[in-house]
């Protein structure tokens, strides 16, 4: 269990943490680092750094385009881990979660991966397609736990209470509460559904809950913060902003402003 994540959620401010997803090395390793630095400087509590795989099954068109860009540029998990190190060198407080698919970890392989990210300064890993039914999830979870890192588990609207119990039992760091069924960046989250879902989870556990999927604007983030969750996760909105302004020389600064718009609402 990551102490840093624990500390972040124990801290009273900001009231609701902003968890922001960035595609690692997108659009380039250098700009990616600049963007993330700005995000940190503008109040992000936890970074999700996405690593890419060609068969990612949970990404909507926005994030998929960014993944394809990174894959085509030939950057892989090793480059992402290097990015993590650079981020950690820049800031020691922000939470860093590596997020992606089991394909790359399996090949890394898992034990070495955990060693390397620990050295780099990551706090946790979230593997989209590694439910606890998967042997490799068990291996990864064990390796992370014994290294003081967290495996972030997800709960989806389709997850019933029985299954939710199993999940919260093994959850660490925070629980990633998936707001809507589907891929990233498409459907919008519904406030009432999210509130009910947070309640359903709260009945079972005290673990911090971060609510993600379908949060597109600072207003959305504010609404979701009212659901009782501990953090809101914004991904496609930032990636889309980067995509739309990729030619812009001031992109890191303007992204920083966008991040600030979110964090301001969550104080």
């Amino acid at each position, binding site marked *: 269990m990551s102490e840093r994540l624990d500390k972040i959620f124990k801290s009273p401010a900001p009231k609701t943490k902003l968890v922001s997803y960035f595609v690692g090395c997108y659009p380039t390793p250098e700009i990616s680092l600049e963007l993330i630095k700005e995000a940190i400087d503008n109040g992000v509590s936890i970074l999700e750094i996405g690593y890419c795989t060609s068969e990612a099954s949970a990404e909507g068109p926005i994030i998929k385009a960014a993944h394809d860009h990174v894959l085509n540029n030939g950057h*892989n998990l090793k480059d992402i881990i290097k990015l993590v190190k650079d981020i950690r060198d820049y800031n020691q407080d922000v939470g860093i979660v590596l997020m992606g698919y089991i*394909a*790359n970890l*399996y090949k890394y392989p898992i034990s070495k991966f955990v060693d390397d990210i620990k050295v780099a300064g990551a706090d946790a890993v979230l593997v989209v*397609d590694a439910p606890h039914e998967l042997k490799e999830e068990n291996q990864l979870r064990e390796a992370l736990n014994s290294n003081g890192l967290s495996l972030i588990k997800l709960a989806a609207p*389709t997850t*019933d209470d029985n299954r939710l119990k199993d999940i919260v039992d093994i959850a660490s760091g925070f629980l990633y509460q998936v707001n809507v069924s589907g891929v990233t960046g498409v459907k919008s989250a519904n406030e009432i559904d999210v509130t009910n879902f947070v309640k359903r989870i709260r009945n079972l556990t005290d673990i911090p809950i971060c609510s993600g999927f379908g949060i597109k604007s600072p207003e959305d983030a504010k609404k979701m913060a009212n659901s009782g969750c501990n953090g809101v996760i914004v991904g496609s909105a930032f990636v889309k902003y980067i995509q739309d302004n990729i030619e812009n020389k001031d992109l890191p600064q303007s992204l920083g402003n966008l991040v600030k718009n979110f964090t301001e609402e969550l104080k």
Partner: protein
Amino acid sequence: MTKNSLKTGPDELGYYGEGDAAMGGMAVGETLMPALHELSKGFEEAIKDKEFLDEYTYYCKHYIGRPSPLYYAENLTKKLGGAKIFFKQEHLNHTGSHKINNSLFQVLLAKRMGKTHLICESGAGQHFSATAAVAAKFNMPLIGVMGDIDIKRVNQNIIKAKHYGAKLEAVPGTLKEAITSAIKIWSSNPEYAYICGSAVSSAPFPKLVAFAQSIIGKEIREQSMEQEGKIPDMIVGCVGGGSNFAGAIYEFLDEPNVKKIGVEASETAALSNGTPGIMQGMKTYMLQTDDGAKSLGGMSLGAGITYFSVGPMHSYLKDQKAVSYSSATDQEMLDAYKMIAQTEGICSALEPMAGAAEIIFRQAKDKPKDYIICLSLCGRGEKDLDTIQEHIGKDFE
């Protein structure tokens, strides 16, 4: 089932084999996990329900036209001068391939489970048109996902599916992109039934599809016993995801005397040239970059076997050395197509011609005359006529 049977697997979590070497499993997002467990439960219940199995058998007979004949390819046999070659005539099934065995089974299962909407992916469009036919028959809307490269080359299947009332979702690419997209659509609509077209993806699909297709091998046994007084010495089939071949060999898994050869397209020969990896819901042999970031593999003329990966049962059987796997080139498939058209009067799909090529060019000749080889002739050629014309049309002038 005995402890040491190759038929016992997979376990509850979808693993074929044990320990780190186990293949299969469930590598999908949380949103779909409940749906997969529900499907597993639904499947296990259904196959204990005699009424359900009878219903499947009824439509196999009346709708699909089963049993498909086990046909002695006398001319081909004589031409090659070795083993006695039989074709399991799955191409005579309604909609023209083995795919409908599985579509029918899964749609009946979906109906039994109270599902009202269907999704499927397809490579050669055979699974799409088969599922669309069954969906029409059981009055369920269907969305089919296909890669744009495939859509162009197997256009007739798309038109038929549309006539049956299905909707097509086109994505750039071929089968693997279609699978990824289908899973995304399913994630967005987890209450739908996903009708997976091959023995691939997360558990319980590999098991479920192999079960549905195992009717092929059961018939082979019966027919071979009746016609030849013995079971085949060798069973050969093409392998894309591996469903027709799984169906052909399942019955004989515990009979090592029956040699089994699965043949992939040489451009996407996951079992011959791949390494274990985890993508698209399963651990299995696949062609991917060393770092696991990208699936690899070129294009085969066989749309249905242009797949960088393979069903986990086959990876397990390869590791167990229970089944051999090889591959065939485009040219070999075309040569086999031509030979079979001209000697047997059968216009086959290109996919099974990978299996035929293995028999023609590598297996039949040096075998004794009473050695029986059975080819799973799993699809008819209409969908591929344009492709064949383009490549070897002039050979027929």
